[in-house]
């Protein structure tokens, strides 16, 4: 089953130029990670070495080798959100998250004039304070 889905992803990108990143994105979305076995299969399909694929997977923040089933709240920690007080919210967010939710830093969601900002999946949230962020984390 896993293999079928992988083959389907590889087929979708056959013939395109420089397909590795689009393939890795699709794999990460479909399986929640790019496992060593998957890397091996991708390498074979693209006529690359396993090390080359591993090098690319490990270079980019978006790709992981293991899945983390917890919901993820990305909290922008870049300068503009810092200027709007995001650092003071981190503790409240982590307290609300406990072990159930993953709080991950992100460097800029492009909402720099209305921070602090967060992203859950493709949903964005801005003008956060400790209470609204804690509510978001709890609902994640």
């Amino acid at each position, binding site marked *: 089953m896993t293999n079928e889905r992988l083959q389907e992803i590889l087929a979708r990108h056959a013939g395109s*130029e*420089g*397909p*590795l*990143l*689009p393939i*890795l*994105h699709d794999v990460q979305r479909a399986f929640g990670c790019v496992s060593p076995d998957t890397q091996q299969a991708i390498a074979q399909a*693209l006529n690359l070495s396993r090390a080359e694929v591993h*090098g*690319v997977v490990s*270079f*980019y*923040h*978006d*790709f992981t080798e293991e899945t983390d089933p917890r919901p993820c709240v990305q909290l922008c920690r*870049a*300068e*503009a*959100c*810092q*200027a*709007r007080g995001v650092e003071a919210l981190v503790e409240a967010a982590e307290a609300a998250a406990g072990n159930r939710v993953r709080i991950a830093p*992100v*460097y*800029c*969601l*492009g*909402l*720099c*004039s*209305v*921070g602090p*900002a967060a*992203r859950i999946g*493709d949903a*964005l*949230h*801005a*003008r956060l304070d400790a209470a609204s962020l804690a509510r978001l984390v709890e609902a994640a």
Partner: protein
Amino acid sequence: MMKVRISDDSLALALGADSVADAFAAAGAVVERTSSWGMHWLEPLVDVDGIGYGPATVDDVSAILDGTSALCIGPIAEHPFIKPQQRLTFARAGRTRPLSLEDYEATGGWAGLRRAQAMSGDAVIAEVTQSGLRGRGGAGFPAGIKWKTVANAPAPRKYVVCNADEGDSGTFADRMLMEGDPFQLIEGLAICAHAVGAQTAYIYTRSEYPHAIAKLRAAIDLAAAIIAPLHMEVREGAGAYVCGEETSLLNSIEGKRGVVRAKPPLPALEGLFGCPTVVNNVLTIAAIPHILSEGGAAEYAALGVDRSLGTKPIQLAGNIKHGGLYETAFGISLHDLVYAIGGGTASGRPVKAVQVGGPLGAYIPPAQFDLPFDYEAYARADALIGHGGVVVVDDSADMGRLARFAMEFCAVESCGKCTPCRIGSTRGVELIDRIRAGAKVLDPVGALPQMHNAPKTARTADQDIALLEELCETMKFGSLCALGGFTPYPVLSALRHWPEDFQ
């Protein structure tokens, strides 16, 4: 029936625009989703026959429909934030539906492309050169010269790559343009491809911008027949800041680690897949349709100061009362931007500094706020305008901590190719920690008995600061790209203007 216009820009969405729109629809109004005017402190901004209300919530809907809402800001186009702007790149912002070909055509869309297609590539490049357009991504390289290099390079295949990897904190103009007026970017790319003889155009943008990616992909599908036979594709980055550097970006599209390539060869001669490639930022490409429309180049060249011609979309961000997008001719002062237009800090406390040009830009103290927005004036002041982000911090900011953050960011995001950036940034974090701890700690390696020539006493704070300055010089002149090369700007400017924050 009443027609209500509400932005579907992701910033408006982050502030609840969808639920406000739904509430208007439920109340019987016709809702149209447009791009954002860029007055972010008023988002979600509701436009009822040109009259604005904001920031609106679901609870304000009935009062807005009655015309009794206290959120009324009067005619939007006459608002003091909008009226003085010189909007060329963002001329459609707030006025059109992003994915409407009809709206785009009705507001002058495709006029530049049609005119360009009737001209030779060389003639198009001559007009771009005449306009004085320089790269809006930060480096400020003249667009016409880059295009000419690619056009003249003999090669069977050529590429156009739009650098839409807007990773700088405090910048969002690329995102707004991609989400609000995607056809303008597509038109600019098509003109560029025609001018240089490219068959394929890639737009490389960030995975942090899912809405921009979706809008662009939809817009490319809608415009496919208009730009044919040009093939255009969006490529999604994967969270690496350094991929905003043009050579890293090319490696990333090729499916490699996003490490920097040494130059030469220039991408204009050996770029994507080894072929001649134009790499231009979103705002550079988006300025093209206007320049290529009748008389546009001369109009563009008439704006600005000195060698910085045309308009610059400036992003007011951070701790600022009236944050948003402000497009104006080059030459405007920081003082006007921060106080007159931005209204000072959102917190109401005094402004301590502004960082211009993203995480790699210098921190500028209020004493230097008369500095005009101009590539050369900033360079002379040891600063950079970069992508035009203006991030305000108030007097509660700890500049030593921000300097440390700049080094740490560089350490985390370094591609690792060159030593000054890879090692220097980590050493920079350690040094700043040591300086701020105020402790005289003997260098652990220097303390080893076999290190005969190492000083056997701990460095003083002054010596550590001198070392930090020297480290910054090494990074500045020894790094392969702007990540290592420009990180010294925020660090040294913080150290120079706020030395007390390092004690």
